[in-house]
């Protein structure tokens, strides 16, 4: 069995990748993808911890909390993407671009 630490390292790296993407990529679609990566990092954690706890206390059966949570999270991520893409579409109509650097009328 893969030790829990490995999962944690993987999810942390994924989170870092996502964060880095949000902070640096100019294309709003890529930013959206980066956010998805971050959510998925959390999903990995959920599933990993779920299986970790199941193995920790085998007598109690499978700990399904994490896995159920992951399902919720995936659904939410999907909803978020849907709304996000719609918003980006509307931005594109007004700005003719989805470069996040250029979307900055509102400031100060």
């Amino acid at each position, binding site marked *: 069995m893969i030790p*829990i630490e490995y999962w*944690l390292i993987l*999810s942390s790296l994924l*989170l870092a990748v*996502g*964060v880095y993407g*949000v902070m640096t990529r100019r294309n*709003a679609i890529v*930013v*959206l993808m980066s*956010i998805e990566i*971050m*959510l998925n*990092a*959390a999903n990995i*954690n*959920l599933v*990993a*911890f779920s299986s*970790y*706890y199941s193995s*920790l206390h085998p007598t109690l059966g499978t*700990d399904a*909390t*994490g896995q*159920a*949570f992951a399902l*919720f*999270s995936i659904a*939410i991520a999907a*909803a*978020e993407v849907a*709304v*996000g893409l*719609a*918003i*980006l579409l*509307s*931005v594109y*109509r*007004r*700005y003719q671009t989805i470069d*996040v650097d250029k*979307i*900055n*009328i*509102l*400031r100060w």
Partner: protein
Amino acid sequence: MAVWNYLESLMPQLVLIVFALVLPALDYLFKDKRVLALVSLVPLVSLVILLVGWLFLDVWAMSTSMIDLIEVNAFSGLFMLVFLFVGIVVVLGSPEFIRTDRNQGEYYSLILLAITGMTIVAESTDLIALFVGLEIAGISSFALSGFRKTEKRSAEAATKYFIIGGFSSALTLFAITLIYGIAGTTRIVGIEPILAGNPAGIDAEPMLILASVLLMAGLGFKIAMVPFHMWAPDVYEGAPTPISGLLAAASKKMGFAALFKIFLIGMILTKTDWEVAIAALAIITMTVGNLIAVSQTNIKRMLAYSSIAQAGYILIVLPVGTQYALAGGLLHILTHAFMKSGAFMVVAAMGAIAIGERLDGFKGLSKRSPFLALTMTLFLLSLAGIPPLAGFASKFVLFSSSVYASIDPGPSWLVWLAVAGVLNSALSLYYYARVIKYMYMEKGPETTVKVPPILTVAILFAVVMVVGIGLFPDPFVEACRTAAEAFAGLPSGWP
């Protein structure tokens, strides 16, 4: 009737969702879109009546039977009341504002959904429910803030809100997974004992700190806590004004509900770890909010910064951590909901009568519309905490809790939170008074303007509450006290 028992706890949400689903369809039935607003008021008003009857009049008792994820109690009831009140004000304020927009049914539907999400957060006892509630409210708000698709700024606000919102919810979720990893459960009341026992057998301390910091960031986004506040002014400015009111007065309060639950129930034992950090953030938040607000020329932006500052005040509750403080925080959440949504409705009225949202537009308003000027004055003075308005009563309880905590359980540095709070109140007076000055002491256009009646109703409702709570705070204090008693882990702190 086991199913009914489950559903009874969820009944408010169910009602809201049903109406939310029906509204887009109604959009095609009615030509006069104001009917939609009235329809969406039906669930809001009826739920308010139910809640008032329960919380204040004791005419009936809400079933507190619970399913695993949520619990209905005085705390959630109070928050629900806040959300519904704000919902009413916002819905009343909307028809004139979005008169020219299409798909108004969806607009109201989204408002109801956002409120649904908020109520779920307020009732949640489990991190899963909490997160789901946050997201329902969040995603609805993203869409709402971009609702005016013809406006550049609305679209930009939605984009920013969405990106930062998504980013923050990812961080929140990650933090929740860490807590789950440490504690092995997502039940909020279950976290703490297990944290103490350290079931994972790993060195949980750094992980726990990471989780709490990520939670501060994720939820700090919702309440616009510095330095996670940057989106707020932009979004409040760009979003349709009633929606800015919704964000400032309700969405932010949802963040507080979540924060209180997680930090004051889930992580209360580690309070000594995070209290200093949050105290510092509270002071920074109120100070930064007020300082920047001083130099704003756009009224919505100014109110946004003012909201940031108000969040700083409410944050005092966490480091003080007594039931009395929590009651103060709840009272301030309640009163702030009225005064801030009221102020945004005045701005919405200004928008609806084509004066705009620049500060300059307020020049000579007392001549043009004495009603708007007077109510705005009351809202602003209340925000500044001038007696005998509602804002004073709630700030009084809130700040006094830190004074008391510094005397009784300690530590004594807590009194500086109150000092910072009152100094910031004085600072905030500067920009509030400037608006009043523009309205009463500057010369402006002489033409009188007429406020649409439905907005008048919204503003009147808010102003009556602001003055009413200010003059007769007793039942509200009592309600907040009852609500705060749900947090049994906290010291009482009542004098």
